[in-house]
């Protein structure tokens, strides 16, 4: 039996019943990695030794009759933007090529404490800036459905690791769609929780007011299980919300009687590939079967979301990335003449083009004399977008759209056209601006490539969001896997 194909909930039962051991499970995943990693290239760093050590611990626990949690013994990959003590954390950048953190991020720690088996750190667009994982300073990751195509980004490696069976689930981060878009392009489930639900402590910041950690899983139940252990108030993160921890698996239900689903027309028209739109429209019919009411709605200010995002995110990034200067850690160009030289050459060599582009955009937007016209204005747009969502949510329980306007595109196709690339996140970005939770679930195929359905929930409305996603998944019944 190919254990790497199991979901979290399937594997948990087998582990508890001692049908399989954590060691066997881990071996299966690593032999899968050996087989496909050369083609897909999900990982920047493999942590095989750590993984087998953790597996042994879990097996000992099981053998001694101790109760194990649902994540214990489950092989999982972590995006290389979250710090894990003692394990190289590069953020896909040359400037952190040999950087080894001295502490572990809260999100990773929460899962490690639950006994997950860390397989490794996954490839990503440099500092999470990109939608294709081509901006990794090390190598691009390839889509398991078509190795000529991108997996999406920026959490491309975390998406492909799950899609290709190189991990049972993984963690990503989502600033403008970096979990949901690659999940859609790779045919798996990816979720961005409400801003503040998962601690950002130890997540190397791209845009602090937008960043959020979330899981990639094979199905919605696994997503709910993972979320149960990811969330919780963290005193180390001032933006972390204080709520009673729910059991999200309890929300999973088939029945959507009376649930109102809105389809914002702005997300179904311009820029959306007609075939993708058609696939999403077909998918929506499934909701009728489960008793939900589907109706069109409008988010009138969405047209400005992309512009606002490309001011706010780079502005915050320009400041967040200032610390990478060669003074204390990371890469430093050797033999420079003076301080200014060291700063400039280190950053010129250490950062790639897209990162530099965004640092420059952000620096400009915050400069004296431009602040009000750019950053100030963008914040106003952000408020308008939040208002649009609030209004829509007065009427609807969730909103739906395509996750990505297209299916996976060819490697190299958009890399020299940043504006075209930025449009990949047109459906996902407004959600980050409003801090809302959203999930991408597979909703069929177009030209042998997966399409994702994007479901957006209210602030802290994860339970309703997961319920709708679960119901859709059950009733839609899509279960294809890449032939890798």
């Amino acid at each position, binding site marked *: 039996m190919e254990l790497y194909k199991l979901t979290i909930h399937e594997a948990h039962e087998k582990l508890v019943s001692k049908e399989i051991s954590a060691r066997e499970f881990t071996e299966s995943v690593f032999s899968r990695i050996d087989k496909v990693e050369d083609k897909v290239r999900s990982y920047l760093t493999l942590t095989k030794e750590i993984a087998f050590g953790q597996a042994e611990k879990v097996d000992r626990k099981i053998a001694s009759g101790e109760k194990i949690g649902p994540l214990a013994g489950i092989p999982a990959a972590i995006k290389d933007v979250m*710090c894990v003590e003692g394990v190289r954390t590069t953020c896909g950048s040359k400037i952190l090529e040999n950087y080894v953190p001295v502490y572990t991020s809260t999100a990773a720690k929460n899962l490690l404490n639950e006994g997950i088996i860390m397989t490794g750190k996954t490839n990503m667009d440099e500092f999470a800036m990109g939608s294709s994982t081509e901006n990794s300073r090390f190598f691009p990751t390839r889509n398991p459905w078509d190795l000529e195509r991108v997996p999406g980004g920026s959490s491309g490696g975390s998406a492909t690791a799950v899609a290709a069976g190189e991990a049972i689930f993984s963690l990503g981060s989502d600033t403008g769609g970096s979990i949901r878009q690659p999940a859609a392009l790779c045919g798996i489930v990816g979720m961005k929780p409400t801003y503040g639900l998962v601690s950002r402590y130890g997540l190397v*910041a791209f845009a*602090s007011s937008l960043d959020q950690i979330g899981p990639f899983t094979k199905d919605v139940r696994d997503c709910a299980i993972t979320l149960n252990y990811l969330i919780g108030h963290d005193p180390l993160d001032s933006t972390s919300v204080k709520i009673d921890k729910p059991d999200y698996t309890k929300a999973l239900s088939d029945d959507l009687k009376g649930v109102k689903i809105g389809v914002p027309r702005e997300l179904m028209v311009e820029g959306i590939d007609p075939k993708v739109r058609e696939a999403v429209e077909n998918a929506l019919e499934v909701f009728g079967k489960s008793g939900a009411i589907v109706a069109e709605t409008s988010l009138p200010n969405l047209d400005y979301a992309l512009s606002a995002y490309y001011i706010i995110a780079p502005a915050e990034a320009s400041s967040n990335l200032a610390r990478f200067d060669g003074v204390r850690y990371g890469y430093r160009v050797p033999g420079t003449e003076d301080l200014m030289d060291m700063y400039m050459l280190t950053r010129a060599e250490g950062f790639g083009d897209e990162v530099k582009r965004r640092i420059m955009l952000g620096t400009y937007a915050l400069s004296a004399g431009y602040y009000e016209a750019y950053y100030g204005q963008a914040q106003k747009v952000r408020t308008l977008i939040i208002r649009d969502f609030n209004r829509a949510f007065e009427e609807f329980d969730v909103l739906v759209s395509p996750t990505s306007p297209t299916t996976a595109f060819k490697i190299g196709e958009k890399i020299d056209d940043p504006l075209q690339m930025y449009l990949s996140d047109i459906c996902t970005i407004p959600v980050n601006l409003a801090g809302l939770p959203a999930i991408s679930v597979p909703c069929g195929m177009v030209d042998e490539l997966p399409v994702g359905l994007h479901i957006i929930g209210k602030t802290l409305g994860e339970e309703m969001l997961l319920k709708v996603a679960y119901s859709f998944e059950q009733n839609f019944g899509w279960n294809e896997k890449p032939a890798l």
Partner: protein
Amino acid sequence: MEYESVIGLEIHVELDTESKMFCNCSTRFGEEPNTQTCPVCLGLPGSLPVANEKAIEYVIKSGLAIGCDISLYSQFHRKNYFYPDMPKNYQISQYDLPLCINGHVDLDMDDYETRIGVTRIHLEEDTGKLIHVGGAGRIAGAEYSLVDFNRAGVPLMEIVSEPDIRTPEEAKVYAQKLRAILISLGVSDCSMEKGSMRVDANVSIRPKGSTEFGVKTELKNLNSFRSLQRALTYEIERQKKALEEGEVIVQETRHWDESKNRTSILRTKEYAHDYRYFPDPDLVPMQFDSSWIESLKAEIPELPDERKQRFIRRFGLPAHDANLLTATKAMGDFFEEAVSIYAGDPKAISNWILGDLSYYLNTENLEIDESAITPKHIVEMLKLIDNGTISGKIAKEIFPEMFETGKMPQAIVEERGMTQISGEDEIAKIIDTVLAENAAVVQEYREGKERAFGFLVGQAMRLTKGRANPQLVNKLLREKL
């Protein structure tokens, strides 16, 4: 032309909290370099700040103490610039929503009073410390530089005054008064030596009577109240001279060199940074309850102005004395402690503190609580005078030894055999000698020359090296004549 100077001060004060502004590291002074650090204050990737509530409380209390309006909604901003002593290459500070605005400090300048406005008080984090090795000890030309991040992230309060200060003397009194207030509040030790209080001054001059501002320069490296006053005096003269010689004043930052007694250019305005302030997205805006502010107000202890009034009322001190004695918390404490163990006139204590003690403190550049002399010394000395053991003159003579060694006055007097001669027989004998040796003067006195009496007293004192009780000498001499 007659000019007047326009001065504004920016005062940075490190707050005396247990832990740093945005992490749990200790703020203790003088530890091994980089031992009081963590991912947050080292700005390691992924770390996040969490605001220290005590520090916020301290700033609000400081604001309340100088009559500020407290912002019920306030925010931290990022101030962006690159420097190796700043781990994140931005400083978490405040911009358009500081914690306190619109305060004031009233100054008693002895012959006039004046009010100095305080524009704002805000909270930020301190930077680390650079040590440049090789070269001239500055970053340019250094072989390499070391960074100590123990101070990085220590809560720093910045108090910005209005340009209401008109003289270097006022600047000094303003800074000293703020210091006394903050020390009374217990929010900082305000040590200029340790750098927990740092003063930068903006100064310009303009024709007297003009309401426009001249071009200002900013003075740095003012490491004591004395250098603040001296640097301003120098800079005002420099600007006057420049204007009189037809030169223009350039807006620039100037470095005060205490040993050379002059300022020199540090950087000109062309190098002014664009700090690209924006709200720190890692920290949620602060919102306060007015009832919480009220509860902080209730915790504010007696402040220097109130203490001064109490000194006048309770101890009958002249306003001048009370003002000086409350200029620092330590001096007021010294005075009160002395009064509590002395039954005599508090004014006598004040005289000694403001007279000899202050003189020696100034000479040695010491604060009153750094000196070897304690209230017990002063009181014991006063008691020795009161009971006739020593004269005031002797007291002045033993003062330097007391100041230098901390020996008690009684012990010094005994060691040096300086006790006053108060035995009537002994003094009578001395007077006999004087009369015998100065028959001519005695004759003059008897002929009505009153001045001759003083000469004879002087002779008696000379023979006893000043130890004779002057009252007794007077009395016995009159009797014998």
